[in-house]
C-alpha cells in the first residue's frame, strides 16, 4: 500500500534498538543481538550524563529549527525566498539530538532536513536566511541554495543535490582523520531514498573496509519525494543493510531527542575508540512535502495529522522536560522568547543584505587563475573583454592585427 509506514521500531530484529518513549515494542531492555553495538541500560544511557542545562539546550535548538523554518515559510509566501523551501517539521529531534552527540572538532554532513544539525554546529540563522534569499553576503555568495553550505572550521560540510554523494566524501574526510591520527569523527546523514544509490553503497563499503571513524545516519522519514519506502527497498528495515557491510547497526526512535542522542553518542564513542563505522536508522516522519510546493497528494488520509497529534518531537520532549527535568513553564517560555528574538533579529539583518553583483558570478571556479573573464557579447563586458575576443573592428584585417597584437 502506497505510503504505508514501516513501523517505528516495531519489528523484532537482530539489530540493536534504542528507543525511549514506550511506543516501540522492540527491545526496551537495551540487550541486543548485535554484540558489537551494546546499548547501555537506561540509567547508564549517554543522555543520563547530560546536564539539566544541556537538556534545555536541546529544546532550544529544536525550537529554533522549527521557528526559523516557520519564518522562512512567511518569507517564501512574500516571495523573498528565491528558490524552493525545504522543511524538517517533525524531524527536528533527529537532526538536533544526533549533532549534539558530536564534539566541536568533529565534522558532519547534513541532508536537506538537517537544518537543526547545522545550527547545533554553529550555522547562524542569519546565514540560513541570507542563503534562502540569495543574498550577496550569504555563505555561498548567492551561488547555492537553501542549506547547501558548510564551514569545515565549525564542522559541517555542505551537501549537494545528487543524493548519497556525501557518504564517500565523508569517508575521505574521516580517512584523513585516521591517516593523521586525529581524535575526530565524522557523521553523514542520508535519507531512506539515498540508500538506494550507488554512492551510498560505495561510500559506506569503503569506509567499513577501512574501519573509518564514521557514523552513517539513515533518516527514515517514510518518503523520498513522493516515493514511500516500500517502493524504495525490499529490505524489512534499513538498519538490516549494516549486516551486509559487516558493521554494527542500530535503530532508534527519531522523534525522541534523547533516544537519538543515545544511539548517536554510542556510535560516536565507538568510532572514536577505533571501532569503525556504524549505521544508525532513525525512525521519523516527514510531515511536509518534499519542498513547499509539494501538496502531498500521495500521502494516505490522516497520516500526517496522526503524526502531528501523537508524535511531534517537540511536544514529546516538553513532556520529558517538565516531568523528568522539572522544567517550569517560565523556563520554557523564556527559551521560546529567546528563539523569537533571535529569529526576528536575524530576519532584520538578512533582509537588509544586498543581492550579489552579477560579475561576482565569474570569480573563483579555480584557485588559479582567480578570475573568469566575461564573454564579449555579455552586457557590460567592455570593462573586461577577453584579449582574444574583439567586438570592435570585427571583420577588418587591421583590427584583427591590433586585437591579436
Amino acid at each position: 500500500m502506497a505510503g504505508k509506514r514501516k513501523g517505528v521500531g516495531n519489528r523484532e530484529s537482530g539489530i540493536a534498538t534504542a528507543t525511549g518513549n514506550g511506543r516501540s515494542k522492540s527491545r526496551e531492555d537495551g540487550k541486543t543481538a548485535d554484540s558489537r553495538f551494546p546499548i547501555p541500560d537506561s540509567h547508564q544511557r549517554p543522555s543520563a550524563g547530560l546536564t539539566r542545562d544541556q537538556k534545555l539546550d536541546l529544546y532550544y535548538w529544536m525550537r529554533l529549527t522549527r521557528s526559523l523554518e516557520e519564518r522562512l515559510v512567511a518569507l517564501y509566501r512574500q516571495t523573498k525566498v528565491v528558490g524552493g523551501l525545504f522543511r524538517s517539521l517533525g524531524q527536528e529531534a533527529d537532526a538536533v539530538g544526533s549533532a549534539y552527540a558530536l564534539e566541536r572538532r568533529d565534522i558532519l554532513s547534513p541532508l536537506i532536513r538537517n537544518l537543526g544539525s547545522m545550527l547545533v554546529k554553529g550555522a547562524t540563522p542569519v546565514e540560513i536566511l541570507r542563503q534562502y534569499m540569495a543574498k550577496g553576503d550569504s555563505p555561498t555568495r548567492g551561488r547555492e541554495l537553501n542549506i547547501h553550505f558548510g564551514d569545515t572550521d565549525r564542522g559541517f560540510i555542505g551537501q549537494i543535490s545528487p543524493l548519497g554523494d556525501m557518504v564517500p566524501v565523508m569517508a575521505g574526510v574521516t580517512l584523513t582523520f585516521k591517516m593523521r591520527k586525529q581524535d575526530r569523527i565524522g557523521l553523514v546523514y542520508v535519507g531512506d531514498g539515498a540508500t538506494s544509490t550507488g554512492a551510498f553503497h560505495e561510500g559506506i563499503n569503503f569506509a567499513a573496509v577501512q574501519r573509518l571513524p564514521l557514523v552513517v545516519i539513515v533518516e527514515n522519514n517514510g518518503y523520498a519525494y513522493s516515493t514511500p519506502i516500500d517502493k524504495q527497498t525490499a529490505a524489512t528495515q534499513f538498519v538490516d543493510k549494516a549486516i551486509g557491510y559487516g558493521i554494527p547497526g542500530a535503530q532508534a526512535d527519531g522523534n525522541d531527542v534523547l533516544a537519538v542522542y543515545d544511539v548517536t553518542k554510542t556510535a560516536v564513542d565507538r568510532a572514536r575508540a577505533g571501532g569503525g563505522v556504524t549505521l544508525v536508522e532513525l525512525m521519523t516522519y516527514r510531515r511536509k512535502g518534499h519542498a513547499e510546493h509539494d501538496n502531498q497528494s500521495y500521502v494516505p488520509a490522516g497520516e500526517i495529522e496522526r503524526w502531528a497529534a501523537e508524535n511531534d518531537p517537540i511536544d514529546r520532549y516538553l513532556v520529558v522536560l517538565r516531568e523528568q527535568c522539572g522544567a517550569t513553564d517560565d523556563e520554557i517560555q523564556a527559551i521560546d522568547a529567546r528563539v523569537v528574538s533571535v529569529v526576528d533579529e536575524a530576519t532584520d539583518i538578512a533582509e537588509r543584505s544586498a543581492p550579489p553583483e552579477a560579475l561576482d558570478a565569474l570569480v573563483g571556479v579555480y584557485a588559479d587563475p582567480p578570475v573568469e573573464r566575461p564573454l564579449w557579447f555579455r552586457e557590460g563586458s567592455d570593462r573586461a573583454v577577453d584579449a582574444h575576443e574583439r567586438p570592435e573592428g570585427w571583420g577588418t584585417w587591421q583590427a584583427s592585427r591590433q586585437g591579436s597584437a
Partner: protein
Amino acid sequence: MAEITYLEALREALVEEMERDPDVFCMGEDIGAYGGAFKVTDGLLSRFGEGRVIDTPISEIGIVGAAAGAGHMGMRPVVEMQFIDFIANAYDILTNYVATARYRAFLPCPMVVRGPSGGYVRGGPFHSQNPEAGFVHTPGLKVVYPATAEDAKGLMKAAIRDDDCVLLFEHKYLYRRIKAEMPAGDHVVPIGKARVARDGRDVSIITYAATVWKALEAAEQVEREDGLSVEVIDLRSLAPLDDEAILATVRKTNRVLIVHEDTRTGGIAGEITARINESCFEWLDAPVLRVTAHDIPLPYAPQLEDYVLPQTSDIVRAVRRLAAY
C-alpha cells in the same frame, strides 16, 4: 642519466612527490600489492606503506568521493582509475561534486584522477576510451594528457601540486613504447601550456597524446615526399587550453589541421575550431580540418580498430588537402 619510459616517468613523479610532501597519497584498485594493472604504482606500497598506498574496493564513486573529502581536509590524493573508461562511473561525483566544490562552497579539492587511456592496443570498447571531452566541458576541472615521457613526469608533478582537481590521462599505448632522459632537478611542466613538438611554416597540426607521434610521422612523410613544412603543436593541457599557442601557430602557417583520437562529434577539435574562428578567422587561408576517430564505440579486431582510429595516412591526406587549398 639513463632514459626511462613514459610509465616509469609517471612513477618517478609519484615517488618524488610522495617523498616531498607527506600529504600526498595514492588510492585505487589493485595499486598496492599488485602495483596497478599496468604497474604504474609498482613498488610504492613497500616504499610508503599501506597508510599511503591504499588498495580500495571496486568503487570509482567511492574512490573519487573519498579523494574529495581528503582534499577538503588538506590532503593531496592521487587516485587511479584502473582503466580511464571506468571514470564514467564517477562522472556524477566528479562533475557535480568535485568540479563545483570551490565555486559553490569554497572547498578545495586538490586531487589527481589518473588512469590508462586510449586505443591502438586492441583493448575493445571498455579498455580503449578517450573520455576527456566531457571533462574539458566541465567548469572546475583541469585536464592534461601528456604525449612524452618528460611531460608525463612534469605534468604529474604539476597536477599533484595544483590546488584544484586535475584529471591526468595517461596513454597506455605510450606507456612502454617511448623513452626519454628526464630533465635534471625538480621537473614540473606548467598546466595550460602547449609545446611546439615540431617547427614548421606551411601547415599546423594541433593535437595531443598518442596522435602527436602520428602527426610527427605524417610531418616527416609530407616533408620528404611533398616538401611541406609542418608544425606540430602538442597541447599537453586540454583544460585550460593554451589559446596563445593555438593562435600563434594559426598566425604562423594560416592552415590548421586538428587531430585527436577521441570521437568526432563533441570532441575537442570542434572547440578549438570555434576559438580560431572567433579570434583569428582573418588569419586563415583554408578551412580548419579535423582528423579524428569515427563516431563509433571502439571495436576489438585490429582491422576494425585501425579503421575507426585516426592513422598517419589519414593525417597525410588531410595535410596535403590543406596545403593545396
